[in-house]
């Protein structure tokens, strides 16, 4: 187990280096630069700026300097702020949004999935299953504005935009409901389908019948015996789900005007803010790879049939 974890961690190093190289060279080989937009900048000023940000050095030297000093590099567009500062300030907002969305997804998804699997092909199954189908087919960028239109503009239940109340530092506030629901709903739908499928497989197994025959209550059979196996497809979906939640946060943060890292990433790419782009990409890549590792470990812990190699 320890060997597996160590090997996986070592494997991520070349992968992350590749990600860094791809991002860096994609940024730098493309036409255009961070100071192109400012028309007033004279040639001398531009040279000075280039010097300040080491843009005048050969590319490979810049690359090495970038990856070795990444968190302390200055952002191009926000002078006097380092990449590390921006990420550590903006990411908690995105992480909170992602966490709420995940809670909604897992809670609703597993609940509906289990309910649907108990009476397959009856109305108890059809209603949650059709809801799930709607959730899968309604993209976040349709769902978000629609929810906003109905619940904040028409009914006025929730604020349309913002995060964390008026001054933005409340721990829980009503403006967090719509973004979290929008982001979580798709995954709730998907997870309920996976749970239903997994549970249907498990509920026909012999050991479930044995458990019932031994007189275990229906609830106990489901919670104690069936869920462990039935949730395996959900666990293996968690890796892609995290990557999807990050991508989803780009859109959600734009729609609901939430000051998170996702919005910053898209902006920084448009601004050719090389240092910030590289920093955010590396941060997300590390996060996704790390969470995937946790998911893999969790999968093996829950399913003894899977052995490391």
């Amino acid at each position, binding site marked *: 187990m320890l060997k597996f974890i160590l090997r996986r961690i070592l494997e991520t190093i070349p*992968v992350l280096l590749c*990600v860094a190289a*791809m*991002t860096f060279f*994609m*940024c730098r080989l*493309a*036409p*255009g630069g961070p100071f192109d937009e400012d028309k007033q900048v004279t040639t001398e000023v531009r040279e000075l700026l280039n010097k300040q940000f080491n843009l005048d050095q050969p590319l490979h030297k810049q690359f090495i300097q970038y990856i070795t000093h990444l968190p302390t590099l200055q952002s191009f567009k926000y002078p006097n702020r380092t990449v590390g500062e921006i990420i550590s300030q903006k990411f908690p907002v995105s992480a909170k949004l992602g966490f709420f969305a995940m809670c909604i997804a897992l809670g609703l998804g597993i609940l509906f999935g289990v309910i649907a699997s108990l009476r397959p092909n009856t109305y108890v199954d059809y209603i949650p299953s059709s809801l799930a*189908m*709607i959730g*899968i*087919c*309604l*993209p976040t*960028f*349709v769902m*978000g*504005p*629609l929810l*906003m*239109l109905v619940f904040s*503009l028409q009914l006025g239940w929730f604020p349309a935009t913002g995060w964390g109340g008026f001054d933005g530092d409340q721990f829980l506030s009503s403006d967090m409901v719509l973004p979290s629901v929008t982001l979580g709903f798709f995954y709730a739908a998907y997870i309920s*389908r996976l749970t*239903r*499928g997994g549970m*249907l497989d498990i509920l026909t197994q012999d050991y479930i019948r044995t458990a019932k025959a031994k007189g275990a209550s229906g609830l106990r059979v489901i919670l104690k015996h069936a869920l462990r196996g039935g949730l395996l497809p959900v666990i293996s979906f968690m*890796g*892609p789900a995290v*990557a999807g939640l*990050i*991508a989803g946060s*780009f*859109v959600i943060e*734009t*729609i609901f005007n939430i000051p998170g890292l996702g919005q910053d*990433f*898209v902006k920084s*790419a*448009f601004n050719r803010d090389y240092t910030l*782009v590289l920093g955010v*990409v590396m941060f*997300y*890549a590390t996060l*996704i*790879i790390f969470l*995937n590792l946790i998911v893999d470990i969790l999968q093996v812990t829950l399913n003894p049939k899977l052995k490391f190699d």
Partner: protein
Amino acid sequence: MSDTPNAKPTATDTVEKGESLWVGAWYRLRKNKMALAGGVFILLLAGLSFIGPFFLEGDYYTNTILEDKLTAPGAEYTLGTDHLGRDQLGRIIKGGQISLLVGLVATFVSLTIGIGYGTISGYFGGKIDSVMMRLVDILYSLPFVIFVILLMVFAKDLGDSIDDWFRARGSEFSISGQWNMLLLFVAIGAVEWLTMARIVRGQVMSLRRQEFIEACISLGLPTHRIILRHMVPNILGPVIVYTTLTIPAVMLLEAFLSFLGLGVQPPTPSWGLLIKDGADRMREAWWMLVFPGTLFAITLFSFNFVGDGLRDALDPKTSKD
């Protein structure tokens, strides 16, 4: 053909069996009402977006009448107008055309890469296979949407550079008009092939062990002939199923990029762009959001139903639920 009872029946038997897979599949699909309804909807939509424009005036989706801006749906404009007074119906038709086109072409790109990669990996097996599949695993764990976003941002101006290069050599060749579409095809196609490669590899691996492939090998057929003539037709079932499920995923990604302002460039509309415009102006004009949004959702719905129906029909064993 003939009534001779000796050798012929076996021949007709095999012919009938060959047919019965597709006939049986069609029979199973026909019973699936949702899949059929989805299929009919997609055909209608394709007809409307690709044949419909022939009956409309050339500028049906760019014709700007500022006096009529933000007109609610009614007798004059069935689906209302947008913030520049453009007919919403025309824009939705053109947008559907673009979205479907991106969906089909990018799916085709990913299909080609996925089938090629998966077949090679599954056919040769061993070391080649484990290296190739490890690569797919690694690519799976990367934040691909981020790369697509970067690619769309940074390669945007590359079209102009290519035009300049050709102009400097006295050529009239121009690519920048279609550049963003081309970029979308490549960027999305390059991301969506991973699952297809895995599916194809699994199929090829199991085929590889079957007698008729061993017969081919012992007959000394060249590898490309075995793969193209004997393997590929046998993996068509799962490939068709997964293709129908890839198209909505691709359309979703295109709309996602267009929504972030990275996809198709205005004034050409795509559904993602129309939804974006609608979301920006939903306070004044709900119809700009509701119509393209609903249509897009129904389209994704239909593709998914057709895909699920085809899976149940062609490949009942791997049916998901």
